[in-house]
């Protein structure tokens, strides 16, 4: 691609010449910020790979809902995805709770089986003669340009509500994450917090599938928070940095996907977030803020 075409398309993108590009930008930024916010708690609670399993596990629910209703209406698809993703996290807890399977294997077991089921259903959907299934592939790797206005409204309402809830509950969530025994003594219901984080994480995954896709949504939950935790050590700033990196990755990813033919939004967003992590990893290397507390400087 020549520079001229690149510049021309960039101009089209930043001036919102096409409504679909504007919708793609808004959806990607919202989803990036939400994932960064929710993902921070997930990463700190060492639930990162549960997010990966939940992301993959939305596939059977979304495709199953499509097969049952025969339409791509947003509500049933999201409900289906939410259902199977929650079921998958429940399976992880159940399988890991049994003593015969390692907890890390429990996540992989759940991911493989749910995603396998999703592929089976998807291959049935692709067989159907109607053209309605076209575009269902978009949820695999994200196709933010295909987001319609009603979808964007639904997505925004869910994302903003979820973000507001997380911010309202930020203190008990933080205490429960860093110091569970103190939190319990202070009357924070720990099992409710855990269930709440799992639900928030699953909801974030489900609203992200149109922009990021089910396969790579975990990256948007893991990479921006990990970057934030490299460069800051206070929870409020970690949340802000993480959401900021997520939003910026969404914006740049949407732009890349718009100007370069054939690139889906999901991989583009993820690569931008990964580049941000790489930069932070290199340049935060000897920064004194890396040391968790003064005592660590003495002992290490």
């Amino acid at each position: 691609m020549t520079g001229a075409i690149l510049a021309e398309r960039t101009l089209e993108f930043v001036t919102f010449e096409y409504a679909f590009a504007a919708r793609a930008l808004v959806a990607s930024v919202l989803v990036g910020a939400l994932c960064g916010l929710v993902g921070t708690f997930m990463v700190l609670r060492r639930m990162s790979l549960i997010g990966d399993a939940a992301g993959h596990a939305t596939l059977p629910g979304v495709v199953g809902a499509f097969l049952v209703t025969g339409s791509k209406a947003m509500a049933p698809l999201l409900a289906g995805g939410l259902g199977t993703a929650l079921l998958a996290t429940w399976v992880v807890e159940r399988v890991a709770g049994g003593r015969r399977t390692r907890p890390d294997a429990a996540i992989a077991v759940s991911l493989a089986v749910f995603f396998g089921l999703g592929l089976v259903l998807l291959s049935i959907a692709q067989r159907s003669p109607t053209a309605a299934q076209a575009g269902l592939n978009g949820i695999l790797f994200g196709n933010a340009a295909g987001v319609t206005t009603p979808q964007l409204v639904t997505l925004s309402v869910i994302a903003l509500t979820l973000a507001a809830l997380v911010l309202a509950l930020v203190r008990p969530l933080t205490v429960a994450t860093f110091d569970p025994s103190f939190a319990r003594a202070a009357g924070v219901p720990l099992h409710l917090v855990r269930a709440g984080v799992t639900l928030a994480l699953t909801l974030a995954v489900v609203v992200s599938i149109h922009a990021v896709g089910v396969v790579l949504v975990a990256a948007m939950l893991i990479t921006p928070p990990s970057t934030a935790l490299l460069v800051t050590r206070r929870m409020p700033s970690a949340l802000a940095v993480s959401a900021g990196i997520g939003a910026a990755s969404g914006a740049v990813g949407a732009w890349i996907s718009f100007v370069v033919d054939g690139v889906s939004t999901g991989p583009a967003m993820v690569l931008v977030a990964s580049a941000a992590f790489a930069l932070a990893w290199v340049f935060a290397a000897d920064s004194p803020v890396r040391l968790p507390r003064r005592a660590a400087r003495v002992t290490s």
Partner: protein
Amino acid sequence: MSWLVEPWTWGAFMARGALAATLVAVPCAVLGVFLYLRRMSMLADALAHIALPGIVVAWAISGGLHPGAMLAGAVGVGLAATWGIEAISRRARVRSDAAIGIVFTALFAAGIIAVSTVARDVHIDTDCVLFGDLLAVSDDTLTLLSLLAPASLLAVVLGWRWLAVTSFDPRFAAAVGVPVVAVHYALTTTVTAVAVAGFEAVGAVVPIALLVLPAATAHSLTHRLTSMVAVAVAHALLASFGGLYVAVWFDVTPAGAIAVVGGLLYGLARIAMRVGSHTLVAGSTHTPGPVDAGRSVA
């Protein structure tokens, strides 16, 4: 029983698919047991995904999918990813589980972008990434798999003692001079090589299913290492052939069907063990205790 025999009469594709599935399933099951025992099952997820960038590297080297280039690509990205995960998780402020997620998603995203832009003529599209094409396996894939599967099994046999001791007690292994880090790199690179070789046939998901489900099933049923490997191989073969039949009879993707059948077999094993332990100690509340390192496997 004609439903068992009939698909084989429809053409060579069934035999070729079964051969490819077997050549992926057996090494995956064996290697997966060691990943499982090392509590690295989620690394299976990562290594299966990075098969895609491995193939892109192979394409960049040779301009096609030459088996030698595929192996070189697999070894390259396998080593790079293992090193990357180690290097990132060594930093105290990055969670080790997050490190896995950061590295493989970045490589996978790069691979997806490559196959959908510059590497379009590699004839691996995003559909192939997910589904593979088990019922239309290419000669190159079959050749590569039939060399790699025995080679990886031979490597496991030769390195058996090292693999076993580093899996159960890495500190003891290091103390007696076993190269623990080299064994770790060799294991992850072999897994990547099998995933890359099988990629065109089964996609990215089947290797995860065949690395993790057989080992988890075997661990529910037995505690000895050799019998774990045997049960895991049996599970992987049953899942592969079961999945293949489901795929041809219900006209669905073999990749997904293998994962689902494998999951059902795992569920059955768990139920069988629960029922078995209840009948053996009828009326008592005894349940099998947590498996401990001293007694046997794990």
